[in-house]
């Protein structure tokens, strides 16, 4: 038996002082969510998904709810998951109407013979899989909107 371990990150960038406290809390929440899965006998894949969903739902992180905006003011999210026991992987690019892209990436891995679906095709696949559609506005945080209005260029 192995000792279960999980590590998470919430992005490497010049995190402003006024976001540090919330960012630390978000990291702790994600770690607890993933570690709880491992401690209760869950798989590494389930733990990774649980931790990432926590951060996608937290507007302090640039993913899911909290995603930054494109030049045109739209949301385009990318996500990937990989299972080291099978070397299977699934990913999506430029999806915009779902709350948790990591869940859609997992569906690509589990339900298709493909690795990466993008744009309209990925959104259509989400609909086929019964993934609930959300309003794009619900993914936009006040911070992301402010940054877009300043057109501050950052990185992933």
């Amino acid at each position, binding site marked *: 038996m*192995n*000792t*279960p*371990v*999980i*590590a*998470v*990150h919430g*992005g*490497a*960038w*010049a*995190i402003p002082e006024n976001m540090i406290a919330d*960012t*630390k809390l978000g*990291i702790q929440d*994600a*770690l607890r969510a*993933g*570690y709880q899965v*491992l401690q209760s006998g869950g798989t*590494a*894949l389930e*733990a*990774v998904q649980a931790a*990432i969903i926590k*951060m*996608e739902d937290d507007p302090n992180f*640039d*993913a*899911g709810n*909290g*995603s*930054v*905006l*494109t*030049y045109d003011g739209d949301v*385009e999210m990318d*996500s*990937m*998951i*990989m*299972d*080291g026991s099978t*070397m299977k*992987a699934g*990913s999506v*690019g*430029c999806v915009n109407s779902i709350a948790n*892209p*990591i869940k859609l990436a997992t569906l690509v891995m589990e339900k298709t013979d493909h690795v*990466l679906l*993008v744009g309209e095709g990925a959104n259509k696949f989400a609909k086929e899989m019964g993934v609930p559609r959300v309003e794009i506005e619900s*993914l936009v945080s006040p911070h992301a909107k402010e940054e*877009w209005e300043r057109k*501050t*260029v*950052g*990185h*992933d």
Partner: protein
Amino acid sequence: TVGAVAVDSMGNVASGTSTGGITAKRPGRVGDTPLVGCGGYADNEVGGVSTTGHGEGIIKVCLARHITFLMEQGLSAQEASEKALENMYNKVGSSGGVIVISKDGGVGQYFTTDKMARGWAKDGQIYWGVAMDD
């Protein structure tokens, strides 16, 4: 960008990464996150990686796969993290950060940016930080 890597009690390794991209990016631009070997990688025989940072640079050096390659050569998760990120900075001028877990549970984390939000849980203990010296 957010990411996670885990090793479970059966020794299975998984990794995931998710992002909203870059503020004011060109519509249709895709970074490293959804690309296997760039935004993340997992192999039960080596370990797992999730990356964050300048996506174009990470793609050029296949950062996640590079780290697992270095681990295959005998480097620890921490040594491989540092070597691969320094290589990326020196070769393509890009900064970023990584979290890594080796198949035997060794944790690596490193970044060449100002800060990186990160943490890990092992043996019932949770560690986290944002600044370099956290």
